[in-house]
């Protein structure tokens, strides 16, 4: 009995484990993105961005523990609220590539939260008493899944750093057009020109 209780206390679904770290990252990214709103001098967006920051912090703090159905429901509600604000901000933005990327940092983590918090593993973990075999299965699942999550997050971070690294090279290759048109169009034209020159 003691061993099974110990196992139950020890087991936490991988979704919750991952959310604990990912939501912290989302919170930090949103804090950094507040500087963009300051630069844009848009007080409404700044206020919404600040609210999203608080909501992410609250969501992180209210992630459910074992047999804590109430916190799970709160987390689900918070996730839905963040998604709503994220979509509202996205729709009311100029829909530039940067805006889409920026609001993706609101919508995607909150959507993942909603998805994972409503998953069977988390639902069972917060509502029912798990059997030892179920915990064993869960631990095995954790062991396999957490590696995938780690891989994904590592790639995500590295891709961001690589993008920041290659920005000047992208820009220098498209700069002749930088007076005329948005940068995505310039990029397209640049490669189009390259292709037409080559073929």
């Amino acid at each position, binding site marked *: 009995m003691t061993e099974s209780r110990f196992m139950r206390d020890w087991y936490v679904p991988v979704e919750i484990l991952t959310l604990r770290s990912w939501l912290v990252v989302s919170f930090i990214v949103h804090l950094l993105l507040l500087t*963009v709103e300051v*630069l*844009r001098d848009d007080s409404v967006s700044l206020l919404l961005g600040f609210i999203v920051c608080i909501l992410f912090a609250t969501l992180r703090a209210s992630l459910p523990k074992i047999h804590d159905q109430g916190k799970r429901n709160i987390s689900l509600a918070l996730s839905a609220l963040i998604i709503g604000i994220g979509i509202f901000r996205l729709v009311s933005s*100029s829909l*530039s*590539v*940067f*805006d889409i990327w920026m609001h993706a940092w609101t919508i995607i983590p909150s959507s993942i939260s909603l998805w994972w918090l409503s998953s069977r593993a988390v639902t069972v973990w917060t509502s029912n008493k798990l059997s030892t075999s179920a915990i064993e299965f869960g631990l095995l699942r954790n062991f396999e899944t957490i*590696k995938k999550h*780690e*891989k994904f997050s*590592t*790639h995500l*971070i*590295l891709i961001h*750093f*690589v993008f*920041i*690294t*290659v*920005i*000047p*090279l992208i*820009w*220098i290759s498209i*700069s002749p057009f*930088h*007076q*005329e048109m*948005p*940068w995505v169009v310039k990029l397209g034209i640049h490669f189009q020109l390259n292709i037409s020159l080559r073929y």
Partner: protein
Amino acid sequence: MGDECQQARIRKGIFALLLSILFLLPGCLDGDDSGTDGGSQSLSGEITLDIWHTFAAESKEEEVFTNAVKEFEQNNPNVSVEITMVPFGNADQLFMTAAQGGQAPDLMRLSSDQLGAIGEIRVDSLPLLEDLRPHLTPQDRANFEERALEAMRYGEALYGVPASQDCLSLIFNKAIFDSQGIDYPNEDWTHDDLLIAAQQLTYQDVQGLALPVKSAYWWFPIQEGFGGSLFNESGTPTLDSNGSGDAMEWMLDLELDHGVVATGTQIEGMKNQFISSKAAMIIDGPWNWATYESSRLSIGQTILPIVDDTGERMSPLVTYKGWSVSKQSEHKIAAADLAMWLSSATVQKDFALETYTMPTHSQLEDDEDILGDDVIRGFLDQTKLGTPAPTTRAMALVYDPLSTAFEQAYSGISTTENALVLANQELVSQMNDLQQAAPLEPNTGYRTISLEFQLNQSASNYSIYVDGLLHTQFIVSDELGMMNSGYDSCLSNGEETNQLGQIRVLSSTNTNLNCTLTGMIPNVEHNLDVYADGELFYSTTGSTSVSDQRPSAGNTSPVMFALGAIVLSLIALLSYGRWRDQRLNRTNSRLAHAYIAPALLALAVLTFYPVIYGFWLSFTDADQTHLGEQSFIGLSNFWDVITASGFIRVTLFTLVWTVVNVSAHIGIGLFLALLLQRTSIKGKTAYRTLLLLPWAVPSYISVLVWRGMFQPDGFVNDLLGTNIDFLSDPTGAQIVVILVNIWLGVPFMMMSISGALQALPKDMYEAAELDGVIGWDAFRHLTLPNLRSALVPLTLLGFIWTFNMFNVIYLMTDGGPNLYFGEPGQTDILITYVYDVAFREGAYGVAAAWSVIIFLMLLAFSWTYMKQTNATEGSS
């Protein structure tokens, strides 16, 4: 056995003595090869001339120039010309540096305002440029517009032959005016008309006007229009004269209040705006006309408008560009001939018609082809309404205080009036602090011959012919003429004769004439004929054997002595080390000390000697006005540094810059290295390669690209959807330079830490994992302590490198924005400020004192850091 040892010692002693004599001998030799070279002065014999020009690479100007040079070479088969392009912006600085190092070109293209910066500088007590007065005959001088020729004079000396002139004018895009149904600008426009039209033409992404609102050069015409002036008649600065503040306010308001000028528009940016039809009007010079035309724009030009309040027309500063001969040139006659050819009517006409360069040749004033071109005529009209830039040191100094005044007014920390009052005070203070070079002794007789004859009382005019060519003309007239302009001398009855243009005026009472004829070739017999009323009146021959003055190539004796002393010290040190090591039985190798001798020698000569020389300079009054003649002044320079306003601020920012950068380099580098250390990640090689790219691209290119990206119309604003001039805001600029340096520095740390991480034993982690030590705990208790031996030296190295990182700040912001007069800029760190002190202010002694202080700071930090961390000690 004892005898053999003694003999060996004697042999070594003799060898050491011979070696030391060998090193000291060159120092004893007289290194004076100061040039009094007459032989190479003539045009005969093979001559190679070095010429530096400032035309844009692969431009039409460069093509016309190159063709002109080729034509000169064809006409002078014994002369070959080697052409080098230097950027116009710092051409004067490059020339000064080259001249001080004895590497100046024979001929250099300089503008009249640049001559003011060069005029006071001396090498070996001689100026950097040749006074061309003895080289040019009165007929040569008569070929140029008088004010153009005067603009090339610094003091009395003539330092260049004028080849072109230019100034700002109003250029407009006809298509944009047509699309908005607005009449084209014309010469009756007032500044209000300009503003109203600019407001009407500001729509969507089009701005009414393109103008760098913080640039002093663009402010000069507006200041004149509002009734102000840069200097009064005596040459005293009057930057705060009546109307100057209003002019600055009006100019800044074009961007800040009316929004007709795009935020943060700079010189390059305004050109791009106009080319891409994003600006309806631009205030620009003729030098960009060809570029605008080649962009298929339908453009027009008119003169700058009148200011309503004063009724005065905006009067742009007219600068003249010409060809100057270096004082160091061995072939001054050939160089002067080339300068005259490049400024000739033929070449100036080619330039005018092909590149819209405004001529200065008097023969072209009535040229049909020139006057037939509307554009050239329009710009020539504008130059006639312009104000010639004074060729003075004050003019060369005016830009820095004004730049600070503009930054203050733009950022709102001062009113325009106050900013200009402070700028004026700063300029006056700088002028008072200037070291004046000693007056020059004239090289009497060089390229001149004295001709004396009695006058015929009945003649009404005289002409002097040299070798059959008209040289000087005289008229007898009761008109007084103008005072002699100091190009040459003609005394009559012991008094200098007056001039009407380049013609000398004689009084009917004059009885004799004593003229110094210029333009003679040394050691050549010249036929001198004097005609009175067209009849040969007097004939003689004359020659001069006075040779050219050239600065000496520099006395190398002290340097050779110093190097000899270093070598001797090394020999003594190594001999002592060997003796001591053998005595203490530390080594059995007889040649161990000889093996390290070459490396020590290289270090001593290439590192220790320059450092010690820098230390020595910091105790002297070394200055660019008397380079090589510095004297010991004790700790005065150090006192200047410590009491300099802004010293604390720049030191604090240097510390912030260094700590933030090094922390970010180490932190991000470590983070990325840990991520890439994970075995399960695919594409690690690709990630590593891409993350190393900042290292693959030369740093100056990366930095310039980043600078472009942070412009108001650059990528960052484009991406964020903002319109912010990051580099004009003090805090913004500081953050930006730090971010760019972080971007540059992370790859090195990432790779270095990756290498150290791979050396950590894996079984240590496996054992720890069994004990439940994973994740953050493993990092904190295993990785970090084991990386310490790599991180400590890396941090120390990073600290020293970043502390002395020059290129990022120099290329991104050049230390700016400069908000305070006579102080470092907001993004200046110690090392960039030292550069300003040394190469902009020319105060080498003070700059050396700054360098010594930087060295002491780094020494103190390194010593403390190593002591605290035991970085260089092996683990015990």
